[in-house]
């Protein structure tokens, strides 16, 4: 029997009022969007002891640190007890802290090299959120940043699961983070305008920002530290369809995700559709994968609440499903779907702890 990967801590930082407590409170509705798709101003110290030391970091790093601080506390650790050589961090992102990159380049272009801030450069590198988190939580094991489209969160889960199962780490923070950027948003708007000359509008949610973090552990290690699993990451599938037949590839990823869970797509209790592109195809694929389900699944569409926080979206979806399962608001299995602009996609299945066993 494979040792199951369980979620023991959840942290969510979303636009407007979007956060774990608000999601659980508002369910089956979702917290109402506040228009801008931006995370409300907050002090990092609210979520992270010693957070003031990181006051000059980019928004992407700040969101990640806050979400990680929440997740670590939720899992029963503290910033002092989580780290060590047997702890790891995997961060997934798309653009990350793009505003600092833009600012550094703008300083360079308009004011000359003397004005270009070294801080803006070091915070521009994609692994700045992970590097700062390693410092904040004293994580001295594997620390990685993966770049990808919306489904990059599932890649992060996959990498963390490998580290846990191989015994290289005992606990792993998995996070997705993204900071809204005017320049990036403008570029995507240009692309969408150009594409809609050829394609029917497909309701792409606006780019937004936020972060989600999960503490992952092996189920077998929980009893010795007296911790509780909030949800089980029962299975996941990753795929890519560069062509036009994305529906078939999504169905394959869904079946792959259910492969060893002991349940099937027809059992799905709730579905979180993608926040990125190919949403209609993903929804069709989901209906197709479910087949003749006895009970229709409940759709929990985060795009209505958070827009599309790109590289953070997938883990925000997983965190939402896990939070709802943990609070008893839904039963599970939950199915999380994610799709990216070049056809990358993923499916993740979450179950209640003590549920189906592979």
């Amino acid at each position, binding site marked *: 029997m494979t040792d199951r990967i369980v979620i023991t801590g959840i942290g969510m930082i979303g636009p407007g009022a979007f956060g774990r407590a608000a999601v659980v409170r508002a369910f089956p509705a979702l917290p109402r969007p506040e228009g801008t798709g931006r995370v409300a101003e907050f002090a990092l110290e609210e979520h992270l002891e010693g957070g003031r030391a990181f006051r000059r970091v980019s928004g992407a790093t700040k969101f990640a640190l806050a979400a990680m601080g929440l997740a670590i506390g939720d899992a029963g650790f503290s910033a002092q007890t989580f*780290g060590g*050589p047997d702890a790891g*961090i995997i961060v997934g992102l*798309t*653009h990350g802290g793009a505003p600092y*990159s*833009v600012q*550094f*380049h*703008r300083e*360079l*272009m*308009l004011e000359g*090299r003397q004005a*270009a*801030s*070294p801080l803006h*450069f*070091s*915070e*521009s*590198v*994609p*692994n*700045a959120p*992970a*590097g*700062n988190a*390693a*410092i904040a*939580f*004293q*994580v*001295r*094991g*594997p*620390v*990685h*940043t*993966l*770049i*990808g*489209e919306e489904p990059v969160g599932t*890649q992060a889960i996959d*990498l963390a699961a*490998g580290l846990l199962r*191989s015994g290289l780490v005992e606990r792993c923070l998995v996070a997705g983070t993204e900071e809204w950027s005017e*320049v990036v948003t*403008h*570029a*995507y708007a*240009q*692309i969408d305008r*150009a594409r809609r000359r050829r394609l029917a509008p497909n309701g792409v949610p606006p780019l937004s920002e936020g972060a989600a973090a999960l503490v992952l552990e092996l189920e077998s290690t929980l009893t010795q530290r007296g911790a509780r699993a909030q949800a089980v990451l029962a299975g996941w599938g*990753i*795929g*890519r369809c*560069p062509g036009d037949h994305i529906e078939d590839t999504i169905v394959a990823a869904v079946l792959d995700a259910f492969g060893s869970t002991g349940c099937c797509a027809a059992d799905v209790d709730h579905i979180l559709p993608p926040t990125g592109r190919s949403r209609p195809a993903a929804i069709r694929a989901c209906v197709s994968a479910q087949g003749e389900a006895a009970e229709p699944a409940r759709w929990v569409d985060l795009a209505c609440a958070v827009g599309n926080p790109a590289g953070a979206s997938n883990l925000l979806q997983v965190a939402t499903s896990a939070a709802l399962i943990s609070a008893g608001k839904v039963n599970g299995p939950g199915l999380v779907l994610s799709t990216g602009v*070049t056809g*990358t996609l993923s499916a993740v299945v979450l179950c209640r702890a003590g549920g189906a066993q592979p």
Partner: protein
Amino acid sequence: MTRRVAITGMGIVTSHGIGKAVNWRKTLAGESSIRPITLFDTAAYRTKRAGQVADLPVAPWRRIRASRVDRASHLLYHAVAEALEESGLAAADWDPSRSVVALGTTLGGMASGERYHQAYVRKGPARAQPSRVVDHLAHAQPLHVMEEFSLRGVPRVFSNACASGANAVGYGFHLVRTGRGDLALCGGYDPLCEFAFAGFHSLQALTTELCRPFDCNRSGLAIGEGAGILLLEAWDRAKARGARILGEVLGYGESNDAFHMTRPDPEGRSAALAVRHALQDAGVAPEDVDYVNAHGTGTPFNDASETAALLAALGPQAREIPVSSSKSMIGHLLGGAGAVEGILTVLALEERWLPPNVNYETPDPECDLRIVQTATRPERLRVAISNSFGFGGANAVLVFRAVGADS
């Protein structure tokens, strides 16, 4: 399940040139390919030289418009083409359920991002070409080469600063070794662009003189560009298909300093941990290590920290092990460094020559290692390690073994 992991193809592009042959010849000759930068105007900078690939040929893309893709994709194309050709593998051998593309990069196609932003600011947002934003993303270049070479699947793109390439090779290695895959095309790349150059300049990390790792008078690093690709394959599978095995990946270790975003831990504690993990993973003892291809950037902090890490992990005998850094000749390839230096390490094992650490003149008591000053043929060269350390405290160490050294 634990399997041996063979290297059956390698591709390399650096300022020495394109391909293994030219890179190895110039490396052994101790030739410096740090040259004046022509890709952007350096008038405002104190440093004006880098390991720029001179006259990079446009890759012969068949499925993608060459003018559309970033310089990073061209670098990657040449390295992937060489590695695949050497391996003798065809697209039909690539089963996406048993194969993976894992690449490391620091800033991907940042030059495209720069061009978009320049147009956005100078000509107005409406006149900026949006595809450049998509092309600048670090997962765009892997997707380009995967499309071109018909490699299906989802790429894993590691961005752990200067350790990225080694991390990607380590990922591919573990995947094949544990039987979760049979093939891994892995490595790293980074192009030279003003953004990264200015960034390191702002951190005062660039030397205005010669890059001289481990020398008492070292004054900083020289930036480089390039790509390195290793084709990793399950040993038995490679043997069964009659592939030529170039070397063996024996182990991989990683850790994080958790110390500072841009400075290494002066005591090299976590870097030493990565070395120990790698040796343990490889099942070799410190006395088995015949050569260290050092990260050796040439900055005062970095080389001293790496020396401390090697002494802590390997013990006093670290002072007897030959050490050299290729960055003295080709510069620091950032996300490409780990893979390119890994390839040079495998070539050293294959050819039984120790590559030199050029420009080394004055020993530094803080770096009391046995620095290889000129190419040397050692008595024994069976096992070597390649170190990569980066921003954000990332440490990655690869262990390689020469073919036939297991007997």
